[in-house]
Structures are given as C-alpha cells and as structure tokens.
C-alpha cells in the first residue's frame, strides 16, 4: 500500500503543479511549454493560479495534495490508510465543490453571492491538471479504504469500484438529472412544478384529437402506438425465424443467422432509405404502377405506416437474435420428458416448449419496444408529419424555437416509457425465468416442430427474409445509378463525389465530400472502443466476481443507464456539459464519452456472460496463492476471456460507427460524424452521396465483424445437431 500511496501522492502533486489546471481553449502547440505557461493565466497549473492570480478557492485542493504527500511519513500502516482515505475524500470534495460553486459568471448560486459578496472572477471547465488531481484523490480514497479493510482489503477492487461508480454518476446520472431539472425551469429561469405540468399537458404531446378525426394525435401517443405495433410484429416474425432455425429442420440455418448481424452494421435509417427507393414517390413500385396503369402513387410511405414498416425490417433481426437464445435455452430434456410421457409433437410444443419460452418472448417484445421508442433514424427519414418523441426532441433542440424546456420535458416522457419497459423486463427475467444454458445432463435434442406450425413459420419467414434482402440490395446499390426514379444508368459519379482522391503537388488529397466525416468517425470510434471494452470488462468482473457493499446498487444503476434512449442521452449531454466544471460541448471528448457510455453494455454483457462460465474457484486459487485482485483479473480471467474481449472491442467500434440517435446532438463543425453527414444528405434530398456513403460504412463494418468472426471463431453450445433423422420427415 505504501508504494501505491507514493505513486498517488506524486500524481496528485504533479496534477496541481505541472499541467494547465483549466481547460485550454488554444491548441496544445500554442502553449509556451518552455516555462512561460506556468505564469500565464489561461495555462497555469493550480499552484500558480492560487499564488499569482488570487484564486483562493484552490487552496484546499493544494493543501490536501500536500497533506497526502506528508502522510507518507506516517509509520503505521493503519494510520497511513486512514490519512489516505481522509485526504482523498477531502481533496475530491474540495475539487468538486469549488468546480460547481464558481462558473463562467462568478458564483453560480445566488446564496453564495449573498454570503460571500460578488466574486469578480470566473473559471473555465477543468483541464488536464484538475483531471489528474481528481483521479489521484479518488484512488487515494479507495486505496485508503482498502487499507482499512473495506473491499476485502484489495486496493485494485476498491479503485475499480470507485472509478466505475464515478464514471456512471458523472456521465449518465448527472446529465440526466440536469436534464430533468430543465423540465421544471420556467422561461424566467426559476424552477416550478407548474412549468413541468404546463408542458406535460401540452396538446402536442398528449392530444387525442386523432380519435375524433383530426389529422394527428400527440407525439407521446404516436410513439406508444408505433412501439406497440413494432414490438408485436417483430416478436411474431422473430419467433417464426427462431423456431425455424433451431428446430425447423431447414437446410441453411446459418444463412438465416447471418441476418442477425445486419442491424449491428447498419445505421438504422438505411432501411428507411431503402423503403423510399422502393415505395417513395419516385420509387420502383410507384413507377411501375404509373407505367402500367397510369396510377399516381401517393406519398403513403411517409407517416406511421412507413416508419412502422421500416422498424419491422430494422428490428426483426434483433428480436430474432434474442429469441434464438430463448428457444435454444429451453432444456431439451423437458421436451424429451414430455415425449416419453405420451405427448405428441403438438402437445409437447403447446404444453411444454411454448410455456417455457413465454418469459423470453415477453422479454423480446420489450426489447423491440425500447428499440422502437429510441429509434431516431427511421422516423426522421420517413416520418413526414408523423412525429414521435425522439424526432420532436431533436426539433425542439435544433429547430427555430430552440425550446430547451420542451426538449427536456419530452425527453422525460421518453425516459419514463423506457424505464417502464426496463422495469417490466427486470420483473419478467428476474422472477420466472426457466431458461438455462447447458445445465448438467442437458445433452438432448430438441424435437422438430409440429408440421403445421412449421409450415406457418416458413410461410411467414421466408418471404420476409427475401424482402429484407431485396431492401438491403436496393439500399446498397441505389447510389450507383444516375438519378433514382428517372435515370437508371449505372454510374460511379456519386461514389467519386463522396470518396474522391486526388494526387497533387502536395501529395494525396482526400477531396471526396464524405472523407472528413468518415475519418473523424473512425478516429473517435477507435479511441472509444478500447476504453469501452476495458470499462465494460472491469465492471463485469466487479459485478460477477466481487462482493462489496453497494454492489447491487451499482450494478442496477449501470444497467439502468442502458435503458436510457440515445436521444435522451444526447440532449442531456449537450445541456450538462455546456458549462464548467465539465465543459465538453463541441469537443471530440464528448463524442468519445457518449460512445463509451452508450456502448458500455456491449463489453459488460459479453464480459459477464463469459465470466459466469469461468469457475470461481480459479480466482480463489489465485487469491490463496497470494495474488491480489489485479492478479486474478490479469493472469487468470483475462487470458480466458480473450475472445470476449476481442468481440467487445469489435462491437463497440462498429456500434460507435453506426450510431445516430445520441451523437446527432453532439457533432460540431470540427467533429462531424459519418451517420450525421448521411442524414443531412438525406434531408437535403442528396440520395446518391447518402447511399454510397452508407454502403461504404456497411461494407467496411461487415468486413470488420467478419474478420473478428474468423479470429475468434463461433461458440458452440450443444454437442449434437438437432433433428437428424426425425426432422427430415416433417
């Protein structure tokens, strides 16, 4: 512990003495690193800020850093631990309090102004120095606590818990809390309940006029209706697919399975694009109708039915993936038992298989429900006058009115929907889940489907799979004709415009219009992926392998953060990180953070799944052999987890590249992302470039995943292939 304490004290001191304390607005190269920075007001470290510029509120921070260094002189281990815990906690508190108390306009709270008088100074967001000091204080506190016997005395576990907790609080809960507070704020800047209810009662949100024949209802009803329709439809389709693949005795189950990777590599609005190419005003269907019968196709695709259709295509694969697990998870021994008890195929299916799947099916329904209410890409592309919450939030933020209160209120409604679904999901999966993978003695074989169920599934699923493929084919190739709907001459014109390269005297020039956003996306996603995977795996390790006070609360809070729709997170981030102490709007950091906390679930889930299959006694062996928490993780768990880690890396990268809903609020001129670039092209009617750019993204991401698949290999669950002899009969 003494060595850790030495390092942490050094880190804290370095943080307050060396790097710029505040966020630096200039480029790093503009700073006078030869020594002048120490005395420049914008670039100075905390020590000079306090000494030279009279920022007295930094003194407590400096004092605790010094005290931490001094505590190293304490001889007894226990008193050192106590001192560390105290210094860490005090330092962190001092840093946080001064950061939130003093902002760009001096005191941020009228109370403080009244007590201390006007400040006559201001401060920017925290910079490198403050970040280093904050981390040092945090880890000092956790190391101290571990030294006092908390966290089973393991400093690594303590530090990991502290880091994960702080990260979740700062980057999920704080933004959402500040968003919620916006919903209570009146236009004069005071907070009242009336402000919230005034907005909630708004006819545009909850109006039911459409029932009485008016053109539209409130957006909240629209969202709910769309979500229920999508969830119902995708669950039925997904179940048909899942039953076919696992026990339908069809010839190419793997081919159907590859459908499931489509939603991961595809930005959600691509489906909308494909539908426009088929059913839009200049789409294929309308053209054929006009050519053959002289019928003018309308713009029926824009609206509820269009968005619903797009979501059906977009989310069926996701639901399918969930349901495969459910259908396979039903223990075949149960079904075999039913068969030996005289039940025929239909009885077995109806009285055993289906009831055992029911909780899983309900879960899949809720997954689709949440996907639908969080979807931004399809409603923005196909919604027309049909508004849903996610698009209305967007327009409230970027539209002419720029009504922060309304955006916050709508986000609150969306959040309540999502959390309601999350709550229902937790209840279902928590209480009566019979699904269990690979219990002892589960070497059996699933019975084949009853014949007419199989025919029904085939009849529904195969045409749908065909349509999906057609749709993707359209969406992928539509960018390679002159003008869709008028001139189908093949051309590479759009591709060239998007991704042109030129050789000039000064070397290679990336002159295509899409390059800038694509490179930005890849760069930020590549930065975010390892951070996401690392945080996710560490959190998974904490949740599955460690027990400490507050573990369940932390786990629940983390899981809860996944239920927050992207649009809500996006809006929350811009409002929360617009002002000091965390001043991030317009930077690449905010996008990386958003990627991290949106995709944390990927690393966490794959980590938890993989770790639950590694016997605990392995860690315990490591502990009894004298290793600490870090050794158990690094030497035992991580090597066994390599496939899960690679998968987490790849998926967080790919998802970061294809995400839309949250980051659309966070992009800036300097940091534009590819998906946002595409959406803007679509909104401007520039389909050629939009489609070629999406094609490039999808193909690249598909290649990334295929590569990973080859490297990692696929996991096999059961030893026998189902339905060898009997399946062929049906």
């Amino acid at each position, binding site marked *: 512990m003494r060595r850790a304490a030495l390092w942490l004290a050094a880190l804290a001191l370095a943080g307050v003495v060396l790097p710029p304390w505040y966020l630096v607005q200039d480029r790093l190269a503009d700073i006078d690193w030869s020594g002048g920075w120490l005395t420049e007001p914008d670039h100075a470290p905390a020590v000079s800020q306090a000494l030279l510029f009279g920022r007295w509120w930094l003194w407590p921070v400096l004092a605790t850093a010094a005290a931490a260094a001094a505590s190293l002189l304490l001889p007894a281990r226990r008193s050192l631990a106590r001192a560390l815990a105290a210094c860490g906690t005090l330092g962190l508190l001092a840093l946080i309090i001064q950061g939130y108390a003093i902002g760009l306009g001096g005191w941020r709270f009228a109370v403080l102004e009244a007590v201390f008088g006007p400040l006559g100074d201001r401060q920017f967001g925290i910079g490198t120095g403050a970040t280093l000091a904050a981390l040092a204080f945090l880890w000092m506190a956790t190391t101290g606590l571990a030294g006092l016997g908390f966290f089973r005395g393991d400093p690594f576990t303590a530090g990991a818990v502290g880091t994960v907790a702080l990260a979740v609080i700062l980057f999920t809960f704080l933004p959402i809390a500040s968003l919620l507070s916006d919903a209570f704020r009146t236009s004069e800047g005071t907070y009242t309940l009336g402000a919230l209810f005034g907005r909630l009662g708004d006819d545009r949100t909850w109006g039911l006029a459409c029932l009485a024949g008016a053109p539209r209802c409130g957006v909240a009803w629209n969202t709910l209706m769309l979500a229920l329709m999508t969830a119902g439809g995708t669950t039925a389709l997904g179940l048909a697919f899942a039953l076919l693949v696992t026990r339908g005795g069809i010839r190419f189950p793997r081919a159907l399975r590859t459908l499931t990777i489509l939603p991961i590599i595809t930005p959600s609005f691509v489906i909308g694009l494909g539908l426009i190419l088929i059913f839009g005003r200049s789409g294929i269907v309308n053209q054929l109708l006009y050519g053959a019968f002289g019928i003018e196709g309308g713009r029926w695709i824009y609206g509820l039915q269009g968005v619903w259709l797009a979501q059906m295509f977009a989310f069926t694969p996701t639901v399918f993936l969930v349901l495969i697990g459910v259908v396979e998870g039903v*223990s075949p*021994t*149960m079904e*075999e*038992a*039913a*068969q*030996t*008890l*005289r*039940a*025929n*195929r239909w*009885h077995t299916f109806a*009285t*055993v298989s289906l*009831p*055992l799947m029911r909780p899983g099916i309900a879960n899949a329904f809720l997954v689709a429900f949440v996907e639908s209410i969080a979807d931004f890409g399809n409603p923005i592309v196909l919604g027309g006058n049909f508004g849903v919450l996610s698009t209305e939030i967007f327009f409230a933020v970027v539209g002419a009115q720029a009504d922060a209160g309304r955006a916050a209120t709508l986000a609150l409604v969306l959040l309540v929907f999502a959390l309601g679904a999350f709550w229902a999901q937790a209840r279902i999966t928590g209480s*009566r889940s*019979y699904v269990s993978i690979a*219990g*002892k*003695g*589960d*070497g*059996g*074989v699933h019975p084949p489907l009853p014949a007419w169920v199989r025919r029904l599934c085939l009849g529904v699923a195969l045409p749908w799979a065909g349509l999906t493929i057609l749709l993707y084919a359209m969406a992928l190739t539509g960018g390679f004709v002159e003008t869709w709907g008028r001139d189908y001459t093949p051309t590479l014109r759009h591709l060239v415009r998007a991704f042109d390269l030129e050789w000039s005297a000064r070397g290679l020039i990336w002159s295509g219009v899409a390059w800038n956003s694509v490179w930005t996306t890849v760069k930020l996603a590549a930065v975010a992926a390892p951070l996401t995977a690392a945080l996710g795996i560490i959190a998974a390790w904490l949740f599955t392998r460690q027990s400490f006070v507050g573990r369940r609360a932390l786990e629940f809070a983390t899981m809860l953060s996944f239920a927050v729709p992207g649009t809500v997170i996006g809006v929350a981030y811009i409002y929360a990180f617009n002002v000091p102490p965390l001043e991030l709007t317009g930077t690449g950091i905010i996008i990386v953070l958003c990627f991290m906390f949106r995709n944390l679930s990927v690393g966490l889930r794959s980590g938890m799944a993989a770790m639950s299959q590694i016997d605990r006694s392995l860690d315990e062996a490591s502990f009894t052999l004298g290793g600490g928490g870090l050794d158990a993780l690094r030497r035992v768990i991580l090597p066994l987890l390599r496939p899960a880690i690679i998968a987490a890396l790849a998926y967080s990268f790919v998802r970061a590249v294809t995400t839309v809903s949250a980051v659309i609020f966070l992009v800036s001129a300097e940091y534009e992302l590819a998906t946002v670039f595409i959406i803007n092209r679509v909104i401007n009617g520039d389909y050629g470039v939009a489609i070629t750019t999406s094609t490039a993204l999808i193909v690249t991401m598909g290649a990334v995943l295929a590569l990973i698949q080859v490297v990692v290999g696929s996991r096999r669950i059961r030893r*026998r292939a189902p339905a*060898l*002899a*009997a399946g062929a009969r049906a």
Partner: protein
Amino acid sequence: MTEARKALDVRFENVTKRYGEAVAVRDVSFSVAPGTLVTLLGPSGCGKTTTLRMIAGLEQPSEGRVLIGGRDVTGMPPAERDVSMVFQSYALFPHMTVLENVRYGLVVSGRRKRDANEAALAALAQVGLEGFGNRLPSELSGGQQQRVAVARALVLQPGVMLFDEPLSNLDARLRRHMREEIRALQQRLGLTVVYVTHDQSEALAISDEIIVMNNAVIAQQGGPRDLYERPASAFVAGFIGESNRLAARLEQRGPEEGTVVLGSARVVLPHHGAAEGAITLAVRPEAVRLVPVADPAAALAGTVTAAAYLGATMEYLVDSEAGEVFIVCPETGSPRKVGDQVALAVRPQGLCVLAA
C-alpha cells in the same frame, strides 16, 4: 393401479448408432426379460445412455432393430412406445405444480382430469409424497424431486421403465436410500426396468442382471455374482470392484478348465479361452490372506510397501514376485508394518483367468 399393467421385454438386434463419423453404439444385441431390473453399466462415453435413449425413442438407431414386448418399435416416436423415463436432471416442468407434472402423461393421452388426478395422487402416495401436490418443483429438495420424477413415470403404468443415472445428483446417503426404494418398488410392482449408471456398487446392489459396456460394445452381460466372480476381461475385472492383475502360468489345459500356477500354488480354474503358458490372473483383494512365512498354504512371498488402517479393515500393498498385490484384510488386531516380510495365500473363489 398399484400393479403394472403388464411388464414387457426389450430386445436389441444388432443395433448401431452413429453420429457422423463417431460410433456411439456398435452392433449391440441383448435382451431384457419382463419384470427384471437390468443395469447398463460403464464409464462415461461408453454408449450406455445412447442405448437407453434408443429404447425410449429419443434417438433412432442407424442400423438394427429395437423390439419392445415383441413389437418392432424402430422408428416410432417416444409417445407411441410403452415406455417412460426418469431423467438424470429429473426434467420436472418448472412451470407446473407437482400434481400437474405427475398427471401430465395421463392428461396428454386423453384421460379425464378426475381420473388423472386420482391416479397421480395414488402415484405420489406410492413414492411417499402425499400432500405435496400443490408445490412447485423448485420448492422441493433433491430427493423429493427425484420421487416426483419416479411417480410421473410410474403413473403411466409403462411396460418398460427407464432410469438415466437417476441418483447422480444426490448425496451418498440419500443415494443408498433411494436405490433401495427403487428396487423395492420394482419388485413390488413387477416392473421391467432398464437402469443406466456408472456406479458399480449401485449396479451390484439393485440389478437382476448387469450389462457392462465399454467403447460402444457390450463387454459382458450377466448376474452381479457372475460379473464379480468371473469377469470375462481385464476391463470388467477392473471396472467391477477392485482387482489385482498378477502374472501366472496356465498348464494342463482341458476343454473348459486348466491348472493355474501362481507362485507355489496350483489351482484348477476355468481358462476362458486363454492359451497355455504365461497368463494374467485377476485376484480380488479380499481373496488374498496374509500368512506366516513358513505356512504351507503360502503361494507368494513379498514385502509390505504400504499399510492403511480403515477402522473395520486394514489395507496393504505387498510387493511380490507376481506383481504388486492390494489386499483388504478383515483382521486389524496385529497390523503388519511397512517393510515386513510376509507370505500370501489365495482363495480360489476370488481368482479369474483373464482371456488374452
């Protein structure tokens, strides 16, 4: 309903089961007489569970025929065979109560609910679980779940009842108790039972007949005493009970029997087809006695290399000229020490010539 309607026999005729390249069961033939309890015994992966599942109809043979009660059931689904099965994991339906589980088979075969309930309650009484009908399986202990599984299979009055390692999830004491119950139930109702296990003591304790399987074929079939006292191969001798394998010679080979020379002892034994000359002799640990060095019955001389006190018995390892001998000795009063010179006498009942 306490009597089984009719106990049926089971016959396998040249049955082979392949999974792709791998052969799980190779050209196996045997028959199970009605009203007997036959155990399929063998190490894991020997094909015993696959054999059982082929009787149930959960797997179909790649070649050969399966007959139950004289009727060819090859290719028939499980529901149409007159069998029922108790699974290793019990496979109780977690979403149904105990009563619903037990009456399940009756209900799906179209019995009226009242009859089904009556029969199910009677079956629960058979296994000593009156009053548990409304519980969920998750609310029962392991032993109780096991009884429910048995009742559920029993209530159908099957011609053949199958058990797939039913006791392997129970602790040792309960396992002993449950195997006695199963045996008693089988005897009382005169059931035909095929029972898979890898535990040789379980097999010896409850079986009328044991079929030992190894590497997808039958190694030996016979009564418990036959198998223990006259193992046909080194595998069977080693798998059923402990046994020493000692070097000996076969002389004066007759049509059935020959003289086996072990050290200075000469014993007439069945030769099981072994040729004259050097042979391997299986010797049970309890068939060897420690005797004084000058004793006329002494066959081998040796040195004690290990001794263990087990309360009721002593166990010794003795290094002799015929090989290392493991001995279980009921006499614990004057134990030998490591390094003692001893002589060994053997009893013919515990000796068996292993076929080459």
